[in-house]
């Protein structure tokens, strides 16, 4: 099914999801960005893992 859960003891969930919400708020109204992030966080926590920060996209690496 989903990828193996990764547990990162140094993972700062609040900071991670705050950054995610800020990112979404660039294209969505703030209320929606917060709602979607809250939904994502609830799902991630129910799945039992704390996701590691995303790797840099190839675009960002090229820049």
């Amino acid at each position, binding site marked *: 099914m989903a990828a193996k859960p990764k547990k990162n003891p140094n993972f700062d969930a609040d900071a991670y999801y705050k950054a995610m919400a800020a990112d*979404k708020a660039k*294209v*969505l109204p703030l209320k929606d960005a917060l709602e*979607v992030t809250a*939904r994502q966080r609830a799902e991630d926590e129910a799945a039992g893992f704390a996701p590691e920060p995303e790797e840099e996209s*190839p675009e960002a690496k090229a820049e």
Partner: protein
Amino acid sequence: MKDKQLNLFLALTGATIIGDAPVLGQITVSNSAQNYAGSLAQDVAGYLAGIPSDDLTAMLDALAPGIQTNDFFQFAKADDEAYLTEADDSDIRAAGSNFKRIQYRGTTVTEATQQKGLTMRVDHKTLPKVNGTIVPGWENRYAEGLRRRLVRADIVRALAVIDAASTNVAITYSASTNPDGLLRAMVQLTRTALGSLADVQVVCGNASWQGRQDAYEAAARVNTGVANHSDYTMEQLARYLGVKRVLLQDGIKQASKGATKTDMLGLVNYSYAVTDSPVIDDPSNIKRCWSPVKGGGEWAVAIQEHEVFTDITVWHESKIIAPITTGVRKTTVTIA
């Protein structure tokens, strides 16, 4: 249109007839030297509106169907009350009483379309001439090029809105996983959130599609009868998933001169609902609200002629919004 009326029409739009009177069917451009600067080129805009839909426009319309609105508009954003069901017999009216009164509440949202356009300077020296006269029809080609570039920008924008509105699950494509089964799981989550699969579509990034085919063709795959999925067309995959359609977003974008060309969409898939001819209150997850430009229609062209070059501007007004975010699902793919 009879010739007499064509002259009148051109006079009303500010076009100047230079030389012979135009023949019906010939594109004529208003000469800004005779009129105000930046004359609105109705006929070129008409040309843009009349050309057959190309792949880019079709892709944008499929990703985010358009709906005409005013430039400032208000709508009620639905809460999740669409599937409220009277499972307690409260819809039965007792003798002497009223029917149950219900209300669909929602939050009122005000939006505005954004005016988006590009200007290009065309040097007269680069235009083909016959006997010293510039061959007509060149404005249409450049306007069409500008229009395609604007549509590409809107496709990138639509994908960004879909991505921001989505909830993600990470999946792996390999010889030991069933990629289409994982897509089916994603689609089922959309169904649970929205209530039906009737208007749901799946968008696959190019790398994700390639990864899917590679996983099914892998020599290491144990034969469980799904290897034929590698040959699935988008229609067959849509049938298997139970959705309206599957879109393969295999576009390329380039952010600046000399930069690497990148996929518009890579190792991701989305599923969400869209109605192909949306109205302001239908439950699509993504809508592209466009407002008519000066002169009516979706696209406008302005031409400013100078002595040795001409500036062509193409613009449109639209806003891509996600009125409902529930049900927009994403899967991020790792190839193993």
